């Protein structure tokens, strides 16, 4: 057999894999950005206990948190078009690219996970504080924005960071529906050149560096937001 690991091949692979980092990152960015918006929406539904939407959101969040990401990807990729197209007379099954479905999956998934993080963080602020705010004449919204939100962000930040690291790794699943991300590119290099180890090693380095980067920035953010107090334990 050829040498299992060869530095020449390793270096050759870098320019082949690196451009696909943009796919991985775009999934993470879209998933997080719209996931935060969706998460906030779900939290609002939960707090206001909106009729109809409240039970739906409960089922939805427990589904998203309780099923494997791969299943969700398959359901969104094959199931959503089968459900939407006949109702609206559209043809998203064919017209939307695989990457669009990947975005939708990750947004829906992140929305559920982030809503749980946000809701937990909000309820961690004792209700007495809201009562105190209201009693001095602040409106409900003012109390929420000035008293609850600043404290809630500090509690939500560490789990938000680890969620982001997890999301980054989960994004490698999209290759199964034909979206080529860095992991997928490594695999295809493996089948085209007969040598997969060098490509995998490079992907490992990329994943580790980015996850360290995310953790470091959250560590820094957390310190910044602790305003001289001890900070939340276990954030790094």
């Amino acid at each position: 057999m050829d040498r299992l690991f060869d530095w020449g091949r390793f270096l050759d692979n870098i320019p082949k894999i690196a451009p696909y980092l943009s796919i991985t990152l775009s999934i993470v960015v879209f998933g997080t950005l719209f996931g935060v918006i969706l998460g906030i929406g779900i939290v609002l539904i939960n707090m206001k206990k909106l009729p109809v939407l409240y039970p739906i959101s409960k089922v939805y969040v427990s589904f998203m948190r309780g099923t494997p990401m791969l299943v969700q990807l398959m359901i969104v990729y094959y199931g959503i078009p089968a459900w939407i197209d006949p109702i609206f007379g559209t043809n998203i099954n064919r017209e939307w690219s695989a990457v669009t479905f990947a975005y939708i999956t990750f947004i829906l998934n992140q929305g559920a996970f982030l809503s749980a993080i946000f809701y937990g963080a909000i309820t961690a602020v004792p209700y007495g504080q809201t009562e105190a705010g209201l009693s001095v004449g602040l409106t409900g919204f003012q109390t929420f924005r000035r008293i609850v939100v600043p404290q809630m962000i500090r509690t939500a930040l560490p789990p938000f960071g680890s969620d982001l690291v997890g999301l980054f790794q989960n994004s490698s699943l999209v290759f199964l529906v034909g979206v080529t991300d860095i992991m997928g590119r490594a695999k295809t290099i493996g089948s085209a050149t007969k040598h997969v180890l060098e490509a995998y090693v490079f992907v490992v380095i990329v994943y580790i560096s980015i996850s360290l980067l995310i953790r470091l920035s959250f560590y820094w953010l957390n310190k910044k937001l602790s305003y001289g107090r001890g900070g939340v334990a276990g954030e790094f």
Partner: protein
Amino acid sequence: MKKIGKQLIAAVLITALAATFTGCGRKEALANADVEKIIVGTGNAYEPYCYLDDSGNLAGYEYEVLKVVDELLPQYEFEFQTSDFANVLISLDAGKIDIAAHQYEYNEERDEKYLFGEEAYTTYVTYLVVAGDRTDITSLDDLQGLKVKSSSGSNASYILENYNQEHADNPIQIDYVNNSTDEETVTGILNGVWDATIATKRDVEKLNKGYGDGADVLKTVGEAVQSSSTYFLFDKENTTLKEAVDGAVKELRENGRLAEISTQVIGGDYTESE
């Protein structure tokens, strides 16, 4: 007042949800209305049939053949979409693709669900493949109780499953490994993770060339497990497209173009017989 506020928020959320579903990502329809867009589904990890080249573009025999087929059919425009092997046929089920191209051999199970092209574009004769130094295996019967690598949805799995139905007392252990690389296959067979796998002679030659370092680390043994050919697969309803593609493949075989592509891409003429 409070109640109205709640209802308002609910209304806004519902519209926002609906808007995201219908609004984003819709592409413009083709400008030329006479040309029908056909989506071809193929794999991305089976060199030299379908794989991604150095710059990440689809390459391989399936692609080259269908590209010339497309040239012969002005009424269609082919667009290629790659995915994991197991997902190609699911995509055909779901109507995401019109043609499935991944060296599909004929078998009854597939025939029940899909429409087979009538023109074969490669022969596909599969053998048992074992490590070069093994002498104890020459037929499926020798594999009872042993571990064989296969992948879900493949014809090899279909053959093994049928064999196991008849020999339920001591079945062959089928190990379904999806999306594995050639390197994993060779290493796994050499170090005994699997006792055998099922592949064509040309695939084994390819593996020996890639990993054998001049020696035949793997070998085919015994009689052919199955002699068949590969066909394009279509949706049951899609007979017009099937007939058009069949006609084009026939023409390519008769004018020698198919053999030419096979020699160029696979390294031998595998379009008639082996």
